[in-house]
């Protein structure tokens, strides 16, 4: 694999990640020495910087991340006012609502409640940093548990999770009943 190709892959990896990508992760995926990867990343950073581009790669929080150039900020800000189509689909919203009220909760438990597979809503919510993986449940198979994030609170303007509107009828017993009767 030639260097141009490797650099392209690094570019794709840094771009696609929802969190800053560490040197270690990059090196592991590419099966190359961290030293080599670091060289190439610095090349990439320089290329973007010198090219007077609108985006560049930044070293943040122990990893690398694409960001928009500071000089374009005023314009990017205007984009906010453009109406966005379908910010969060109804399906994703329902899944998020269940996680918000029943956290920590596993995928199977969410699926029992919604009656459909929720793989793709979970992916969307993880991608948007509204939910996170929070350990594993101590049951057979040790399924992943999901909780909401700080970002979730910010997004809905909540101080703490206690500020979520109460829904009284929702006890664990009714939940159990519903799950038992839902299929």
């Amino acid at each position: 694999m030639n260097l141009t190709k490797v650099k392209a892959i690094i570019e794709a990896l840094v771009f696609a990640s929802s969190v800053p990508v560490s040197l270690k992760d990059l090196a592991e995926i590419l099966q190359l020495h961290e030293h080599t990867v670091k060289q190439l990343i610095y090349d990439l950073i320089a290329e973007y910087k010198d090219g007077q581009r609108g985006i560049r790669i930044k070293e943040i929080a122990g990893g690398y991340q694409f960001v928009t150039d500071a000089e374009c900020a005023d314009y990017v800000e205007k984009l906010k006012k453009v109406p966005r189509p379908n910010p969060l689909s109804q399906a994703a919203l329902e899944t998020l609502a269940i996680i918000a009220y029943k956290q920590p909760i596993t995928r199977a438990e969410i699926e029992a409640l919604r009656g459909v597979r929720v793989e793709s809503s979970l992916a969307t919510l993880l991608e948007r940093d509204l939910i996170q993986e929070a350990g594993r449940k101590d049951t057979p198979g040790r399924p992943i548990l999901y909780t909401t994030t700080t970002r979730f609170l910010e997004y809905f303007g909540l101080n703490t999770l206690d500020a979520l509107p109460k829904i009284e009828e929702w006890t664990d017993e009714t939940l159990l009943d519903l799950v038992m009767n839902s299929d």
Partner: protein
Amino acid sequence: MISTTDHSDHGTYRIKLDNFEGPLDLLLHLIEKAELDIYNIPIARITDEFLEYLKDIELLDLQAAGEFLVMAATLMQIKVRMLLPKPVPDEDELLEEEEDPRLELVERLLEYRKIKEVSKTLRSWEEEGSRYFRRSGGYFPDQEVAAALDMGGEVTLWDLVQAFKNLLESLTPTLELEGMPDEQYSISDLMREIEEKLSRKHEFFFSSVFTGLPSRKAIVTAFLALLELIRLKRVKVFQNGEFADIEITKWEDNKR
């Protein structure tokens, strides 16, 4: 016993019909396999082949089975209609051409074939599209603007709570009987009806079981009732030759 409330059983509908996306798919397969002209389907032959596949149905999933049974009933009705002598046209009337009983079925098959073709194209685009990744909309302190954009900002807390409440309501345990046999016509009622009819007539044609039934559900129920009677060896069905309608007789009468 075929149970009408057996749908908690997670109907694992494992038969060779599994390879087909429904009765139209199976029909299309039979026609294409035999390289038949879709505009001139030999209906008797196709009906037999279709029923051959149906033999293996396990009636675990009444809904899925029902879809195939409705088609079987349709095929048999067409077959019967094709056998009926054409009425001699009244001399005063315009010589209207008799509509081919197969016409509607052919149209449905043609439409369905188009859907299948388009699906192939979509499948290849899906494969191609899965190789492009979008930027993930994560949240970075350094990139607040971009992160805010990802949210769209149009979903409110109220939307979230509403979504949850709706879900609660939708979970109120209700047994949806859609696709299940018609409550007005239970399987046992129709079994009784068929047997009563046999005690008067000794034998009658299969297609007449369906005449006068109001809905697809009722037709499915009738079919199931018949299958149950066959299983319990209370009636027998047979066909006198390739083009004949299926006859139903009492089990003990069947000494031919």
